[in-house]
């Protein structure tokens, strides 16, 4: 037994042959990264299917397809699956694949824990999704799980245990990423020479460690309120329902930055590559990410402007929230400056990145408007908010993940994807996503609350337009699936080691596809080889 283990350990020739051994028992950062990415893509389609149910019911006034309670299950599950199942794991997958390659490390610092943090996820989601098939149905109180409503649900225990598991997975992933970045960089890869993507993940990982336990605490209190007669959030027993919201959003606001900071990192890698020009203001970019991360801890109550906070609190949280516009603005201006004076080409990753900058900024604008507490008394809990967070999460986070997939697919698979089909996917997605979400601004301003299964006839036209955009956007993602499958299994066009003309950084110095083991011997760092090595003085 011991002998076999030793033998396995020194087998550096390639991946294990057996399917079970290779994928289930994997300790290889590339294979685990692939698992994360496949898992999150699967969840993206499951969560997308829930969204299709929502948009189908909202296609026209009147209830045609589902009962209102099931509609609420769909909105709740759509959010939980997309946030915890699609966006977060795909960023962790990208971190797994790319961080060791980008800092010149042979693997993640804690490979066995890496395996565990992935393999918890499928079980967490089986637990969560199984509630849909149980008597009483799935959670229907919204992903925010506000009591007392969430405590009326019969599946709250399943949801809470699923959230606990996801939290454990995220915390382990974050510890692993921090340990890797701080301990395993190749000699010469100073902190301020690291790619912005690595920086963004280092900061994100600290956010994860800080707030996932807070979420775990909040949902555990829900659990004891429901089953063990505590009264944390029960007003009749001396508790306070608003307390839950404070705790939840103390987690929740950093959480939304957990879903966007790695996106900033990705965009900061792709735009310089296709502009053939170093990123503008590297240090400012890193500092902006750190400032945004810090501010994310002191703005949570802007999700609660309508709960009747004292005026002093409203003013504090309003000012703090508005401050976020400053570092975010710096990032957008720096991306534009990176493009200015460059020599640009527009391959699919660049197209998604440019769309990210424009559409994420639109989401930022509505975010600034929402920060103004008096105006938020109107916007709050309407489709204006729905439009806002879909602009930052779909055309923000999800677009950045797609950009990253196109950007690094050649490195992962050794093949080039079909540029034509990539561009078709891009244009189809970028047009449909605006047809889908832009009219929702109008709906919200006109007075349509969110999370309702049916609406007045005045809201009919924009809802129908939005639904058509929704079906179109959903269908467009099948193109993405096709492009990825084609690239990995059928593409005849081999990728060069440096797959993009302007690409810099260590990941492009290893062969394509990246061999099973890379950087067994730390690479010698030449500053001009790095994306950000010799750009600042």
């Amino acid at each position, binding site marked *: 037994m011991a002998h076999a283990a030793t033998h396995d350990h020194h087998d550096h020739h390639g991946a294990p042959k057996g399917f079970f051994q290779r994928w289930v028992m994997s300790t290889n950062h590339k294979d685990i990264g692939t698992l994360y990415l496949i898992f999150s893509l699967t969840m993206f389609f499951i969560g997308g299917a829930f969204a299709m149910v929502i948009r189908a019911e909202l296609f026209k006034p009147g209830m045609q397809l589902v009962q209102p309670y099931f509609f609420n299950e769909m909105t709740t599950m759509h959010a939980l699956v997309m946030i915890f199942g699609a966006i977060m794991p795909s960023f962790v997958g990208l971190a797994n694949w790319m961080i060791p390659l980008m800092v010149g490390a042979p693997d993640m610092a804690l490979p066995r824990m890496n395996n565990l943090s992935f393999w918890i996820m499928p079980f967490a989601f089986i637990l969560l999704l199984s509630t849909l098939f149980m008597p009483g149905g799935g959670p229907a109180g919204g992903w925010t799980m506000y009591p007392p409503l969430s405590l009326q649900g019969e599946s709250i225990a399943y949801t809470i245990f699923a959230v606990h598991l996801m939290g454990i997975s995220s915390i382990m992933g974050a510890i692993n990423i921090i340990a890797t970045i701080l301990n395993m960089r190749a000699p010469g890869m100073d902190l301020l020479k690291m790619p912005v993507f690595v920086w963004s993940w280092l900061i994100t990982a600290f956010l994860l460690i800080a707030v996932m336990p807070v979420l775990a605490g909040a949902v555990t209190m829900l659990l004891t309120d429901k089953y063990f007669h505590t009264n944390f959030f029960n007003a009749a027993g001396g508790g306070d329902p608003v307390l839950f919201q404070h705790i939840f959003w103390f987690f929740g606001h950093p959480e939304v930055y957990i879903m966007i900071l790695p996106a900033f990192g990705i965009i900061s890698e792709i735009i310089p590559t296709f502009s053939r020009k170093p990123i503008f203001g590297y240090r400012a970019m890193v500092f902006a990410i750190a400032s945004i991360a810090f501010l994310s801890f002191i703005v949570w109550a802007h999700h609660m402007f*309508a709960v009747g906070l004292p005026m002093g609190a409203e003013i504090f949280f309003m000012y703090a929230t508005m401050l976020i516009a400053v570092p975010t603005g710096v990032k957008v201006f720096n991306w534009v400056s990176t493009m200015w004076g460059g020599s640009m080409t527009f391959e699919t990753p660049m197209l998604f990145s440019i769309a990210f900058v424009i559409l994420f900024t639109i989401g930022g604008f509505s975010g600034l408007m929402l920060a103004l507490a008096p105006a938020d008394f109107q916007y709050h809990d309407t489709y204006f908010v729905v439009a806002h967070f879909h602009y930052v999460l779909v055309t923000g986070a999800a677009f950045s993940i797609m950009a990253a997939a196109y950007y690094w697919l050649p490195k992962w698979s050794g093949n080039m994807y079909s540029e034509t089909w990539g561009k078709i996917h891009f244009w189809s997605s970028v047009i449909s996503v605006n047809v889908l979400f832009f009219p929702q601004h109008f709906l919200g301003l006109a007075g*349509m609350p969110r999370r309702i299964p049916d609406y007045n006839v005045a809201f009919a036209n924009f809802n129908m337009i939005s639904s058509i955009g929704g079906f179109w956007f959903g269908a467009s993602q099948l193109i993405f699936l096709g492009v990825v499958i084609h690239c990995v299994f059928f593409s005849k066009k081999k990728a060069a080691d440096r797959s993009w003309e302007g690409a810099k950084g260590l990941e492009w110095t290893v062969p394509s596809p990246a061999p099973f083991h890379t950087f067994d011997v730390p690479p010698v760092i030449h500053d001009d080889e790095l994306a950000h090595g010799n750009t600042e003085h």
Partner: protein
Amino acid sequence: MTSGGIGRSISAWAAGALALFGGAAWANPEPNQLNMTKGAAEWSPYAMHMVALWVCVVIGIVVFGAMFIAMFRFRKSRGAVAEKWSHSTKLEVVWTVIPVIILIFLAHLATGGLTSFADTTNSEMTIKVTGYQWKWRYDYVDYKGKGVDQVGFISKLEETSDRTRQLKSNLDPDKIKVDGYNTYLLDVDKPLVLPTNTKIRFVIVGGDVIHSWWVPALGWKMDAIPGIANAAWTNIKEPGVYRGQCAELCGQDHGFMPIVVKAVPRAEFEQWLATQEDEAKVQKAAQTAQTVPAQAPQG
């Protein structure tokens, strides 16, 4: 086209744009409405909203404009050669300071709005609003410094909408109209009647789960939370019927608990209130009359 013709067409277009973007004082949702209502009350975040919107539009034009110029000028296919610079402290200071100045201006406006919203003093009337799954209860607490005697009622979705909204009812939501205005899911059996030109204080609570009381024409929403009494105020300037909905997810019929406020001139309101008080007295008397004989044999 003559210059006058151009001028006329521009002003016609501007009038149309104005109508679309806030010229018309919509009180209730209108088909294809694009913008927030100006509202019918003294306090309204409409102006603040429009300032913020235009600030965003202008910044957007500048930033996206620069991006599109860059994408056009600096493309490899036009022979652009990448420059080497990647830093400019001067520029970075500029685009940190300018946003800060804009934000201070917006914060100043918003703070004023918050301060006036938070001031519920000097109200002439108090209404208690209670949210239940899935209906509202209104209690008239006091009017002009005097307690109101037992006027309160439940207000819930009216019957035609309720029948139409059932799954596969095959009833047409388009047909539900009051005075030519479609009221599907926006009408109740008994509206909240309020006087105009009166500062009204609302005390808002939740009876079971959290709800949120929202009438867009009044300019705000406020959560109705079990165990907490929230306060807000309004002063309605125009008589009319103003419609709204519950804005906080509160269970399966969250979408089916509308709010209707009927604002009437003070004299008319006083008359209405007096009738309600009389009815309440009659009802109470009838109840006591019933309970007394019932108890008598026991005694």
